[in-house]
């Protein structure tokens, strides 16, 4: 991935910035230029909560090339309180602990690197909240 492409996504990937429609309040992550609910084009930027629950999960055992060194790894869809879902790996978890509805916290982690001369990608991974 070219550095410029990765760099454009940093506000969302690094800081979990989302967009809330000023007219109807629908939240978008990643942000968009037009609201798919009401058609408005004005948004306010805010930071998503970094806690949510696991809506679904899988364990990737046959990865694509870039993730060859990471596999097997757990991948999930995290549902954040604001009605937003996002995809994230689930880290620091035993695979047999994974459950739909499991509370998780988003933590800033290294995602993968593109060889010795490529971009090192960072973003958020979901980690189980153990109370």
């Amino acid at each position, binding site marked *: 991935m070219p550095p410029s492409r990765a760099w454009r*996504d940093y506000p969302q990937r690094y800081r979990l910035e989302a967009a809330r429609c000023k007219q109807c309040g629908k939240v978008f992550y990643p942000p968009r230029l037009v609201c798919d609910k009401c058609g408005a084009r004005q948004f306010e930027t805010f930071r998503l909560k970094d806690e949510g629950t696991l809506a*679904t999960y899988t364990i*990737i055992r046959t990865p694509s090339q870039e993730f060859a060194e990471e596999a097997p790894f757990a*991948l999930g869809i995290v549902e954040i309180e604001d009605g937003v879902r996002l*995809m994230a790996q689930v880290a620091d978890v035993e695979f047999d602990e994974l459950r739909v509805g499991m509370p998780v916290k988003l933590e800033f982690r290294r995602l993968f690197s593109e060889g010795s001369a490529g971009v090192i990608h960072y973003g958020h991974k979901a980690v189980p909240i153990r109370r």
Partner: protein
Amino acid sequence: MRDVAVIGVGMQKWGELWTKSLRDIFVESALLAIDDAGIDHIDSMYVGSMSSGLFSGQEHIGSVLTDYLGQKHIPGTRVESACASGGLAFRLAWMEVASGVSDIALAGGVEKMTDISGSDATYALATAADMDWEGIHGATFPGLYALMAVAHMNRYKTTREQLAMVAVKNHKHGAHNPRAQFPFPVTVEQVINSVKVADPLNILDCSPITDGAAAVILVPADMVSNFNKPGVKVIGSGHATDTISLCQREDLTELKAVELAAKRAYEMAGKKPEDIDFAEVHDCFTIAEIIVSESLGFFEAGGGGPAVEAGETDREGKIPINCSGGLKSKGHPVGATGIAQIVELTEQMRGDAGGRQVDNARIGLAQNMGGSGGSSVVHILEVM
């Protein structure tokens, strides 16, 4: 708009065709369709190909393939909608003939997937997902369908065995298809014990990497008597899109694009799900066939798993699904799949399906799907 009929079909055996190039594979099947229709020229061609660029390092194939088919200078259009590219190519060819712009159109599809490594193919396929927001976290295609499977199993109590039974049924059907990549039966135990890909999906829950092509010829329905084959009429066509990012769907256990494409096709055809005699659906993964059979209205939400377990989707069942073997047994050269579904419907309705023949096959439905459901194309065909 004019009524349109399929008058010729062609499809060579699918598999790992190491001795054949992208263009050879396509031209062989296209020539079969041309010969089947008994014609010597076509006015226009649409060819579905998901990623000739990533799989073969060759773009611009609308021109390459018309040229090598011996139809140089005709309009040749390559169509892309991920794994629904073939179905969409058929829809565009149908529109062109229906509109009166062309009288004889060829709709084809092709993918040459084995010239690159398995992990490169996994990457090429994953580009049909949302690369910036799903791919970046390591999502693969089996992974996305596995996420749907876990959600479906959690909500509807769909079982691991029911998933496996889709593969077992489709392999049982495909064993009678001489053009299938894997024409042999498998058992539930074999599926459940096969290599894990993305839990709960194993390798035998997944459609394979395949080289293959398929082609059909479309003409105005009122010209069918000029040809030497019985025509099969296109009575419904529907196409719908959805967010390609699975995260942004309202419901992880349904496929909205399939539901809407089907609704549009049913409305055009004036038919309901219970009017359909048999269907070819996009079983890229076992869970896909279960959800699709619900989204098409054959079963209520959550009813897809119990239906396959009860044999309702068997060749002898209430609504036979994937008598060709489906993507699972027949193979899944992504751009060709939607066209191969039309080939199967036509052969079934001509009574030419041999050991796969469905009794009283008069109205058939084909459902093709891109990515994790970001696009879908549905066609309904009827005997003339």
